[in-house]
């Protein structure tokens, strides 16, 4: 690694990045991932680095710990308490990691070693730096587990990762990061893998870490709500460069650059752009009932006598023609299971589920097949929902082939129409799925789902794998098409703001039970069930001032 000699520490700053350039060597020559980035982090300050895929924010984060791949070359300076991390030798680098700077990872379940106790993993970090006995190290591990709010740390220190919940695992990782009281913590998407309610707790913990230990935090995230909640200052990155850098309140109130403005505009904001704004009763109830569930339960069988898992528990709901029904819930709430059951991908266990008049309790693929042309499905992962061996055209034409028996030429005309409808060039029909971007694939997926003009479209988290700006465009497209074609839709999402933007009628699922149902704006604005209240209160809104008020109210409650 080559470095320009930029020396001396900036006063008061724990971390000072100057003119950082990171390039990767690839087939196509050198690719610059980070281009001339510089910012400071003071003790006790949270600096959020935000940006979409490919913005270089994660590479920047890894450079701070010297965790780059061998093929990467970094120039410039990363001064951590005066030491330039880019010039340190392996031994000094190792000494600095954990002691001066440590890291919190995105996915708590993969960042903990499954075959060692959490205590062992924390002790490993401690004993790598200080020559103390195992017993002392364990006492310290217990201490730090207590600090992050793990109950009964004396016992839990001997637990294995799988014995903790997702949120607790993230606490353990924060504990491991705190073990040697570093001056700086780099948190790389620390709440992205967590549910909103858990996210709120982890954000609270990070805030406490900053306040209690005066630790500087570099927060890498794509979630503007999280930024608004926690950050003191924000650095916006785009294609390896810093677009804008400002104190949090200022950035949200008065974004200077066009990119920042567009980014902020694309973020769904709970309570704005509600599809049901001004509605007072459920619309379209006189129309044909497409889906009707009565006391629907779905149980995944357990193995060999162990009890089954009740994914859906006595849910009753109704979707009428032309209506967009929004189903929200956290992971494990059963929302996806319900969507899959309606499409005949999951068997139902008891109760009744009528889809287009067909009772799913007596499901037979043969008799249901004819009805499938009236049901479209959009899957969550746009990368995995296309057969990699077939072209986009072939994929989109498949429903036409199966149900209409169209010959390829007739199908091609229709495919072109469909691609046009989802705003993709007709030439994309020749391409293969991996040649499209995520947003383009999701458009193509929508085209395939709509190929036969279905009465009902099931969209299972269709935008959660996409960047915010791409998500906004896909959602816009979805809205337009729904208005134009008038299909009914079951829109499944964990994101309350997104659901509210699209659906007029919203159901809230919690551990398999439908705890609340109502007009979108009313559920979001005036929730009745305690769980819905908690869910909505824990969702950070992308506005620091409003979020501070919400947080205060939430903590009081």
């Amino acid at each position, binding site marked *: 690694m080559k470095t320009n000699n930029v020396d001396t520490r900036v006063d008061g700053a724990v971390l000072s990045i100057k003119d950082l350039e990171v390039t990767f060597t690839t087939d196509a020559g050198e690719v610059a991932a980070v281009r001339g980035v510089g910012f400071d982090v003071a003790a006790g300050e949270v600096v959020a680095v935000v940006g979409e895929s490919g913005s270089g924010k994660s590479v920047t984060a890894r450079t701070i710990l010297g965790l780059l791949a061998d093929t990467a070359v970094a120039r410039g300076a990363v001064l951590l308490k005066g030491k330039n991390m880019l010039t340190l030798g392996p031994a000094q680098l190792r000494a600095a*990691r954990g002691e001066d700077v440590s890291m919190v990872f995105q996915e708590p379940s993969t960042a903990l070693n499954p075959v*060692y106790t959490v205590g062992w993993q924390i002790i490993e970090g401690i004993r790598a730096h200080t020559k103390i006995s195992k017993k002392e190290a364990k006492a310290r591990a217990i201490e730090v587990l207590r600090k992050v709010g793990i109950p009964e740390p004396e016992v839990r220190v001997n637990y294995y990762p799988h014995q903790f919940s997702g949120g607790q695992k993230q606490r353990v990782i924060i504990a491991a990061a705190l073990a040697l009281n570093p001056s700086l913590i780099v948190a790389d998407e620390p709440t992205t893998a967590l549910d909103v309610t858990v996210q709120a707790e982890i954000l609270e913990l990070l805030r406490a870490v900053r306040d209690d230990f005066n630790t500087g935090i570099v927060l890498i995230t794509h979630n503007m709500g999280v930024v608004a909640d926690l950050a003191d200052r924000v650095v916006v990155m785009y294609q390896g460069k810093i677009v804008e850098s400002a104190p949090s309140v200022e950035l949200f109130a008065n974004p200077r650059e066009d990119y920042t403005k567009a980014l902020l505009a694309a973020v769904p904001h709970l309570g704005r752009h509600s599809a049901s704004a001004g509605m007072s009763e459920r619309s379209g109830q006189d129309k044909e009932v497409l889906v009707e569930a009565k006391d629907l339960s779905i149980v995944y069988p357990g*193995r060999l006598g162990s009890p089954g898992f009740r994914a859906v528990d006595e849910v009753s709901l109704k979707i009428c023609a032309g209506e967009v029904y929004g189903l929200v819930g956290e992971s494990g709430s059963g929302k996806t299971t319900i969507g899959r059951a309606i499409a005949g991908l999951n068997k139902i266990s008891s109760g009744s589920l009528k889809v287009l008049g067909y009772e799913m309790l007596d499901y037979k693929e043969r008799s249901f097949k004819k009805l499938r042309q009236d049901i479209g499905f959009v899957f969550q992962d746009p990368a995995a929902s296309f057969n990699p061996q077939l072209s986009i055209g072939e994929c989109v034409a498949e429903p036409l082939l199966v149900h209409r028996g169209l010959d390829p030429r007739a199908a091609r005309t229709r495919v072109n129409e469909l691609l046009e409808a989802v705003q993709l060039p007709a030439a994309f029909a020749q391409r293969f799925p991996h040649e499209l971007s995520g947003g383009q694939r999701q458009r193509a997926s929508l085209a395939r789902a709509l190929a036969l003009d279905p009465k009902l479209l099931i969209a299972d988290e269709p935008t959660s794998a996409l960047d915010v700006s791409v998500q906004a465009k896909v959602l816009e497209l979805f809205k337009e098409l729904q208005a134009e074609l008038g299909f009914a839709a079951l829109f499944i999402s964990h994101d309350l703001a997104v659901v509210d933007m699209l659906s007029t009628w919203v159901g809230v699922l919690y551990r398999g039970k439908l705890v609340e149902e109502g007009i979108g704006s009313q559920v979001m604005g005036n929730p009745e069930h305690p769980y819905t209240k908690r869910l909505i209160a824990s969702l950070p809104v992308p506005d620091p001032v409003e979020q501070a008020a919400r947080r205060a109210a939430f903590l009081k409650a």
Partner: protein
Amino acid sequence: MATTINLTENPAVTPPPTRPAAKAGGSFARYLLTRFLLIFPTIFILVTLVFFLMRVTGDPITAALGGRLTPDQLAERISAAGYDRPVIVQYFEYLGQIFTGNFGRTISDNRAVTEVLATYGAATAELAVNSLIVALLIGIPFGLLAAKMRDRWPDALLRVFAILCYATPVFFAGLLLKLIFGVWLGWLPIAGRAGVNAELQLTGLQNPSGIFLLDALRSGNMSAASDVISHAILPAVALGLLTAGVFLRLVRTNVIGTLGRDYVEAGRSRGVSEYRLLTKHAYRPALIPIITVMGLQIALLLGGAVLTETTFEWKGLGFQLAQYLTARDFVAVQGIVVLLAVIVALTNFIVDIIAALIDPRVRF
């Protein structure tokens, strides 16, 4: 989404190379029981398969003695042994016999198969253990090294070495070892389990275990012990190298997999040394699939033992099997094959349990 996890797949039925047991929920006792019960269908299937396959071609007596006896004599022997009855009757009788530990009598030398098994089993066990030690000593450290030095020249060398180990038939490796160390250099004996004197001394002991090294050490006979060791080296190396190649690749692939995991990066971010990251953080989680697949190699090892024993005239089950094959004594062959099947099934069971014990997700 969490709800789409396939909960119906029974991991005990499909020994997966990646993950030995249920991820969560299943208690260890239940896993143990189901895994144990699975041994029986495995053995049952193999016994059935071998029995019917061997019987399709005709009765064992004609196969062994046909041409040497007159048709009348043959028919008499056949009816005396009950081979003229319907096959299905013979099958159930055979099952019953096996259940009571009766594997029949050999045709060529009229011994109880169980006696053959008891006499020669220890020698095969000794060879298997010796070569396993060789395989582990080479496979694990070099596999770790190759994973760490991935795609650099030590890795390339080790991989070619591993493939060579696998590509060399064990009898050819044996032949080369005999030529080089036995015939040309004259360092080591090239046949048998011990010299004549040592063998006499060791088989004459009271209650011999049959494992020569143990017997020699127990009786304090140091010269016999060194003689036994010098005889054991070449066969153990020949068979051990075969398995070492497989182990090396296994360790390398799995450790490369775990080295790329977030938890290793997390350890690195806390300042843990690269050596510890390799030998603890990456190695231990890789061990679960490694052990499971190592268990499946027992079959390879036993198949290799048959060839090794023949090459080195190591008088074990494999050597005997080859002798009986030449003599077309299919009762003996069937007995030995079934016994080996049982051993494989049992070892796989034990190995799966060990793998499960390492995995805390199964234990708790």
